[in-house]
């Protein structure tokens, strides 16, 4: 199967049965995978930060950088390729933390909180997730089947 890599602050949507969308290095960043089993449309977003009000011009340039611009863009792009929200399976991976008691380095938690808020407002439920902890994760989404896998260093791949 051909891998299509989703970089940091990037997003890809595919209808190619032979493709696997993959995103590496999910630390505090979050990988959001969506899949419509009927239309066989899969999309994957790798966002870095929760809130685009930080820098609206960057958000225009690179909407995948922020949750509040990347998530709508992912869904909208997938809609144009046939995905329907009510059929979509939604998978969330990442949002890890370093060993920080002060709470200052909590981008992971803030990313996850923002994502939940956006999905909740849009009546989208999360079907499977692997978030938090201090793990560095890789997320795979098979476009032909919708199967999603997470890989952490030193561990076998795990299906979500």
């Amino acid at each position, binding site marked *: 199967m051909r891998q299509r*890599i*989703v*970089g*940091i*602050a*990037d997003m890809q949507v595919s209808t190619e049965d032979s493709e696997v969308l993959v995103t*590496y*290095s*999910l*630390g*505090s*960043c979050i990988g959001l995978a969506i899949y419509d089993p009927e239309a066989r449309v899969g999309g994957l977003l790798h966002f*870095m*930060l*929760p*809130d685009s009000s*930080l*820098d609206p011009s*960057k958000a225009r*340039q*690179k909407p995948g*950088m922020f949750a509040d611009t990347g998530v709508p863009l992912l869904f909208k792009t997938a809609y144009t390729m046939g995905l329907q929200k009510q059929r979509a399976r939604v998978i969330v991976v*990442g949002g*890890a*933390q*370093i*060993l*920080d*008691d*002060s709470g*200052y*380095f*909590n*981008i*992971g938690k*803030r990313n996850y909180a923002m994502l939940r808020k956006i999905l909740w407002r849009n009546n989208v439920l999360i079907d499977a997730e692997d978030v938090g902890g*201090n*793990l*560095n*994760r890789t997320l795979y989404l098979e476009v032909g089947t919708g199967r999603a896998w997470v890989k952490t*260093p*030193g561990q076998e791949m795990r299906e979500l």
Partner: protein
Amino acid sequence: MSPAEPILEAMDKVKPFPQVVLKALNLLQDPEVPASKLLEVIQYDPVITLRLLQVCNSALFGFRRRVESLQQALVLLGNQGMVRLLVTFGALELLRDPLPGYGLEREELWHHSVACATLTQTLLRQVKHPEDTMVFTGALLHDVGKILLNEYAGKKYLEINLLVAEKDLSALEAEKEVLGIDHAELGGLLGERWNLPPGIVSMIARHHEPVHPGKDPMAVCLVHLANIVCVQMGIGAGARGLASRPAPDLLLALGWSPRTLDACVSDCWCELERIRTLIGIPQNGRA
């Protein structure tokens, strides 16, 4: 015998630090150094000269005229810019190999190091300091101890991982406990052996210490912070990178909110994309 002894003996096996880069760094210790002196040092290395010219002529710099000589390149880039390019290439040779002992793929450590180096410059601007090639270099080389410790960390991979997972140790603490030395300390020793400027050695050796801007040099604090931010984002975090401890109260002492840090991260990422294209790492490649 301490478990660290064979590791210290193995220091002799590590590749030497590129002499042209070292000479250029030492010259740059004097901020007033004339460009002609830098030119003298660099021009005798044809490989580096060629690469510098190739980069200067790439579309990203957008120079209108073709850059045909090192002299022209130096005028366009300035002393600092030239040395930064030099150390970035020099570091690529040192840091590009995969490090399975740390769960790092080929070029992953180099990419992490370039990200840290770039981020230090964003952080320097944030604390109203001018950009600084020494800090850039310290950040670029902060994990150099890993290239030597990789073999030993690989042999004790599971043992180190277990300590991190079950004893709540940071990756660095676990490494020190199992191997008798950690990559920061070892990197500092390596830097001394290479005769790197003392300021850079200290940034390498202390990049995991609980530094504080009231007591420690700003350079050391910012290399620490840049490393923490990059591993947090998963850039070159490898097998255990997120098990890192930030210096307590560092952000508080700098007077920053989490949002200040977010802004630095976002600025740095855009700059990094530019550099990545410049050096020829695929844009969507494994970070």
